[in-house]
């Protein structure tokens, strides 16, 4: 997938790829040198190729990626996201995109589930998953997995939930 490598760096991946298009024809390898593949670009269409498909707006903030990065983490809706105890420095944080930073701010205010983060950031869940994948990979956050299906909580926890519901 061409967008995958270009999208890793959401802010300037595409732009860098586009400008290198001209250089590639000069060095005599017109198709191979173009990171987006495809044929000769028509004017104004250097951001697209046959494989990119139609642009979908929500995923613009993820650089076109619809799945989290190489770690292939599947963020459950109720997985809890906490800020890492030893996060990268302010310099690394400064290069994050606005949506990444918004999510990080929400995580800092309170440990929240993926679903809550999506609702509070007013972003679709799919987009939030990709952005959280970035934050996880760069060490800003950690994720706790919810209870696996085959391993329901013990009776003591369930009793606690029932009592808690009664007391609401």
């Amino acid at each position, binding site marked *: 997938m061409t967008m995958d490598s270009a999208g890793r760096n959401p802010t300037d991946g595409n732009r860098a790829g586009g400008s290198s298009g001209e250089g590639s024809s000069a060095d005599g390898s017109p198709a191979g040198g173009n990171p987006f593949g495809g044929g000769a670009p028509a004017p104004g269409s250097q951001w697209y190729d046959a494989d990119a498909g139609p642009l979908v707006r929500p995923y613009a903030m993820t650089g076109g990626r619809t799945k989290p990065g190489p770690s292939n983490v599947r963020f459950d809706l109720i997985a809890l996201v906490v800020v890492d105890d030893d996060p990268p420095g302010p310099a690394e944080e400064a290069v994050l995109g606005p949506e990444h930073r918004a999510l990080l701010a929400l995580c800092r205010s309170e440990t929240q589930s993926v*679903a809550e983060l999506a609702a509070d950031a007013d972003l679709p869940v799919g987009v939030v998953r990709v952005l959280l994948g970035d934050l996880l990979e760069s060490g800003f956050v950690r994720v*706790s997995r919810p209870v696996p299906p085959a391993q329901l909580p013990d009776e003591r926890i369930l009793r606690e939930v029932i009592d808690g519901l009664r007391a609401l």
Partner: protein
Amino acid sequence: MAYERSDSTGADGGDALALKILVAGGFGVGKTTLVGAVSEIRPLRTEERLSRAGEHVDDTGGVDRKTTTTVAMDFGRITIRAGLSLYLFGTPGQDRFWFLWDELSQGALGAVVLADTRRLEDCFPAVDYFEHRKIPFVVAVNCFEGARSYGAQDVSRALDLDLGTPVVLCDARDRDSGKEVLIRVVEYAGRMHTARLLDTVG
């Protein structure tokens, strides 16, 4: 990878527990009302590929080209104590969003199937779904004003429920009534789980 199990006993609060209960049923049966009655409710947007069912057989190279659609769900959170929360998810009512249910039901403690006796057939798909996947559920009959009242037995028979599946009458607008429904789900899920454990042992 910093990916922790919830049952880890790290000193970093990694043992926080989140449980999930689904609220299913036909369109307009009161799912949003029920979730809102017992918890602070928030709308959740998902951006889903409509053709997701074919994802597993397709070459992933083509996935990006497929159409996406926005699906809205309701969800609420009930904090039992610090580190223990119960999340409620109102499943999308329309049939074409079935694919979302698979994700929602994964790891769910149990489910509520809300039913309206005036159109009981609307909740058949939800009953089938949870029965097939062996997800513990209770049927909660939302007693609308003006609707003829039926007993729990009648509803159980009409839905051809498995023996033991609880049926409760409720008022989805009422907080106490909603709490009672949730308590029944948790109790029943606990019983089902224990029974299954015994099955595997014996």
